[in-house]
Every structure is written in structure tokens, then in C-alpha cells.
């Protein structure tokens, strides 16, 4: 992509969830950690304070939500402030199944952000934990490291690309 002086990016997504027989159609927009959730005609503003591989901290109307997430197939289990919620993702916003079965050589983003630099090239040999890509997210640089040692067979992003959490960046063979 590489569009020169882009200062902000917005991602929007629509998903459908089911829990205890209730359906939730959700539209989410985020701009650099700030976002809005639209659900059944209601719009709620939120802020992502912190993100880790399996968790995040979300601020909504001044309240702090500590969250951990685990996904298996279409079921997303979310621990939020001492309670656990099991959500099933319905058709429509359904993610490709392959994304759930993470192969050992797949290098994915731990968070949404922008690619600052790509530090390796296709066919490079890399060691486990070697930095492959530098992401920028919430004004911080985050290295994405090799999940195993091997040869880089694919690089799917370039500097200035905007990436989602869990997006495939590179493949190591």
C-alpha cells in the first residue's frame, strides 16, 4: 500500500455472535485504540488501554474491564472481571477456519497496528525469536519474532501496511 503521509487509520468490522440463545450483531470501528461498538442501534465508545496475546484492558464509560480471550473454532471464551462468557460466532462474520489452526511456522500479529519495518527477506534463514517485523501500535514499536527457526518462505506485508490482530505476516519453513 504505502500511501505516504497517512496519519490515522480506521478499521471497521461486522460480526455476529450468539450467547445463551441471544444474537448480537456487532459493528466495531477502531482508530488507534479508540473505538465505537454499535449493537442493536446502540453505540458505545471504548478505549483499548492495553493488549497482550490473549488479553486486553478496555475502558468503557470510565469503567475498567480486564479481559482474557481464548478461541477454539467458532467459540470464543472471554473472561471479563471474574466472569466467563462463551460466545459463538455465527455465519456472516465467520473467520476462515484455517486461521484457528495456527501452523508452527505461521507468524501472526499479536495486535492490530501498522507495519513500520520488515527486517528479513524471502529465503533468509532465521533463528527462533529473531525479529522479523516491527509493528507500530498505540504509539509503541512492537517486534514480531520468529515462532521457530527455518527459512522465510513468504512475507505477506510491507512497510505502512495496516494489519489486524492475528493477521498472517510471514511463513517460516
Amino acid at each position: 500500500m504505502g500511501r505516504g503521509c497517512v496519519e490515522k487509520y480506521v478499521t471497521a468490522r461486522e460480526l455476529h455472535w450468539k450467547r445463551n440463545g441471544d444474537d448480537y450483531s456487532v459493528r466495531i470501528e477502531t482508530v488507534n485504540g479508540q473505538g465505537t461498538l454499535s449493537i442493536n442501534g446502540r453505540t458505545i465508545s471504548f478505549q483499548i488501554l492495553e493488549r497482550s496475546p490473549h488479553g486486553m484492558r478496555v475502558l468503557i464509560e470510565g469503567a475498567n474491564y480486564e479481559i482474557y480471550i481464548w478461541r477454539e473454532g467458532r467459540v470464543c471464551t472471554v473472561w471479563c472481571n471474574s466472569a466467563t462468557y462463551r460466545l459463538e460466532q455465527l455465519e456472516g462474520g465467520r473467520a476462515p477456519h484455517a486461521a484457528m489452526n495456527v501452523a508452527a511456522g505461521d507468524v501472526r500479529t499479536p495486535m492490530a497496528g501498522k507495519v513500520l519495518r520488515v527486517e528479513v527477506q524471502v529465503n533468509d534463514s532465521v533463528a527462533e525469536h529473531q525479529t522479523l517485523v516491527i509493528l507500530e501500535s498505540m504509539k509503541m514499536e512492537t517486534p514480531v519474532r520468529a515462532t521457530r527457526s527455518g527459512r522465510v518462505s513468504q512475507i505477506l506485508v510491507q512497510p505502512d501496511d495496516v494489519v489486524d490482530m492475528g493477521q498472517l505476516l510471514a511463513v517460516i519453513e
Partner: protein
Amino acid sequence: MIRKVLVANRGEIAIRIFHTLREMGIQTVAVYTEPDANSLHVRIADENRRIASYLDANGIAHTAAACGADAVHPGYGFLSEATSLAAACEKAGVVFIGPATETIRVMGDKLESKSKMQQARIPVVPIWRSDPPADEYPVLVKAVGGGGGKGMRLVEEPADLNSALEAASREAAGAFGDNRVFVEKYIRNPRHIEFQILGDARGNVIHVFERECSIQRRYQKIIEESPSVALTPELRAAIGAAAVEAASTVGYRGAGTVEFILEPTGRFYFLEMNTRLQVEHPVTEMVTGLDLVREQVRIAEGQPLSVRQSELHQIGHALECRIYAEVPEEGFRPATGSIGVYRPPSGPGIRLDSGVEEGSVIGIHFDPILAKLVVWAPSRTAAIERMQRALGEFVILGVRTNIEFLQRVISTGAFAAGALDTHFLERHTEVFQQAGVDLPPAVLVAASLATDVPAAKRQIAFKDPWAVGAWRNT
């Protein structure tokens, strides 16, 4: 002198025993079967050896001898109360950390142990080998070689006795290889009170106070505490004396537990003796400061007990919750999976005996206990509050657990009041209702942001001050 110990167990109890052994400067050997090759207990031991089965007594004893271990610690469950392991160790020239083989045999036989207790004038629940008098109903049909509620049946009417005896006998033959059954008086609404016992090779026997384990599901304990609110100092002294007498009668050597049931009237009856370390032993350690595994090792070395009865005191209050991979709301069915997120609680007064970590696979092969969460506080009320906090901070995702169920149980008014008996969960059905029907918007935000969305469903737009609403599908 014991320098190296093989622990014939797995999971949290193997790890808990390793901790003490390491503190004592003793080398540790783990054993494992195929599904456990990468388990936590295997990785933290100094050495590990693969065995055919955790139930292979001869194999375990030979493995211990072959790797130069001086002793075998059986933990709980598996072969801890089987005479086969104690006997195999003896043959292999390895110390068995537990009582004499004959003690295990006598106390493991529910009929023989009861008659021994009766001879020692310890009250036992009335039993019959055949038809009990009609006015003694309801009665329980139990397996002589049973445990954990298996082969047990409640019979309300004399007319139903024969079919219950037959069914229990069949079940017992299949489960324990012993079809003998007997009939026991059924005590209504009892509390389960047990006393920790220590006996050394010189004939000294002391008790290390009680644990109350009245919160049970399917005859298995899930919440235990010490002290029990039901015991007055007089009652504690009386049951404690009976427990010491019970152990002394059989010349008990090692750590053991004498279980009683306590009627609402204050009458108590000997139930059985467990000739091993108990799952819930940490609550005793928390209120007394004693390390029961260290005492076991010392006793096995032939050393005297490290404390006298008069030196022991119960200080404060300890509670234990057993964290199981199970779904209480669906009949406590065992849950399987792999642990994707594991965030244990911490802070003052919290002890976690855990056998798992992130990445652990919970399969169908073994008991679904994941960890034991134990808290200590100066009072029972403070201990409950501390347990509420600790359970509230405990995150396990990837396999379903009973954490929220435990939270609901300890948050009932009845639990706070100490109004406990072994039918607590049958009566307080509200604890099976999952609270919090509302879905916090934050949960939808997190789930949605953590989901891979196909490119066609994802819109990425580049906003600049001069072009408003420039949406573009990528």
C-alpha cells in the same frame, strides 16, 4: 537416611511433594506414562522415568531401585492405599513412605477396620452384613473394597434392599475386583469431620486437628476447611482423642486421616481411616505451620515426630477449593481441552498447589483436578473474603472449570453461617444457576477485536483531513 525419592504420582500432588523433598535436600524422581510425557511434574523433577502405568506396583518399585532411590512416596490415589506397592517396595529393598503393609490392608477393609474400632470402643456407624431391622431405614449399601462413592446405594425401604445389594455387588466386582457388600445405617445431614494423624516408628501418635469437608459432590470433597465451626473445644478434644486411639490401635506409622461423621446432635461415628496423605492436607499445614510431607519423610527415616501434641495450635482459618476441569451445571461432567490462558491469583495468604500451566493438555486419562487453591486468614469470615478474591482473579481458559461454581457456593448465606452438611449442594440448588445474564459490551468488543475477519468483511480506510468518509474495501 533418605537421599533420593521416587514419587509414584502425577499432577499437583507430585509437585507439592517435590517441593518439600527439594527443601530437605533430597533428590527427586518423577514417573510418567505416555500422556504425561510433557507434564509439569515430569519437568520439575531432577530425574524422570517412564513407567507402564501409575498402577504398576512392581514396575514402580523396580524403577525406584534401579535409579537408586531410597524411598517411594505414593501421594494420594493410585497405589497409595494398595498393599501391592508397599509390598513391592519392601521386596525391592526400597522404603515405602507410608504405614506398614498390614496397616494398609486392615484399614482398607471397611468391615475389618470397623470391627477393630469397635474393639477399641470408638463409636462406629452401625453396620449389618444382611437385612437390617426395618426401623433402621434408610440404609446405605456399600462395597467392602470401595471408595469415592463407587458401588454405594441409598435404600429407603426394606423391599428395595435385595435389588440394591445385587446391583452394588455387580458394580463393586467390576470396579474393585471384590464383590463383597455390606449395609450401613444412613446418617441424615451429617458433617464430614476428619482428623489428621501422625504416628512415628516409636509408637508416638498425635493428631493435627480437624478438617471439615462437608461440601461434597458425588461423595467427593470440593471445599475443605480448618477449623470446623461445628466443634467446641470439648468436642474437638473428644474426637481428637478417638482419632489418636484409632491410629494407636493399629500401631499407625506415618501420616493418616481418621474420618468421622458428625450428627447435628454432636454424636460422632468413625467412618474410615485413610492411610496416606490427604488431598486437603494443605489446610492443616496452613493453620498449624507443620509440613506434613516433611513429617512423613522423617517418620520413614525412623526419626521421632518433630512436635508434641501440646506444641500444636490451630491459628486462624484456612479454606481450600479444589479446582476441577468439569462442568458443575451439567452434572459435573469432566471437561477436556488444553489450557490456553492460565493466570493464577496471588497475594497475602494464598497458596496454590497446581499441576498445570499454560499449554497443559487435560485429557480423559486421569482425575480432572487441576489445582488446589488454599487461603489462610485470621478469621473464617476473612478467609471466605480472601477466597472470593482469589477465585475472582483466577483465569483458566481453554478448558471449562468449576471456578465460578465454587465462587457461588462460598458466597451463599448458608456457607457464611457455617451451616454445612454433606447434602449442602443438593439443598442449595441456586448455586447451579449461572448468574450474570447480561453480556457486558466490553466482552463483545474483545471477542470481535480478537477475531480474524476475512478481507471481504474488513474495511480499512485512510482518513485524512481533506477526504471525509473515504471508505474503501480492501
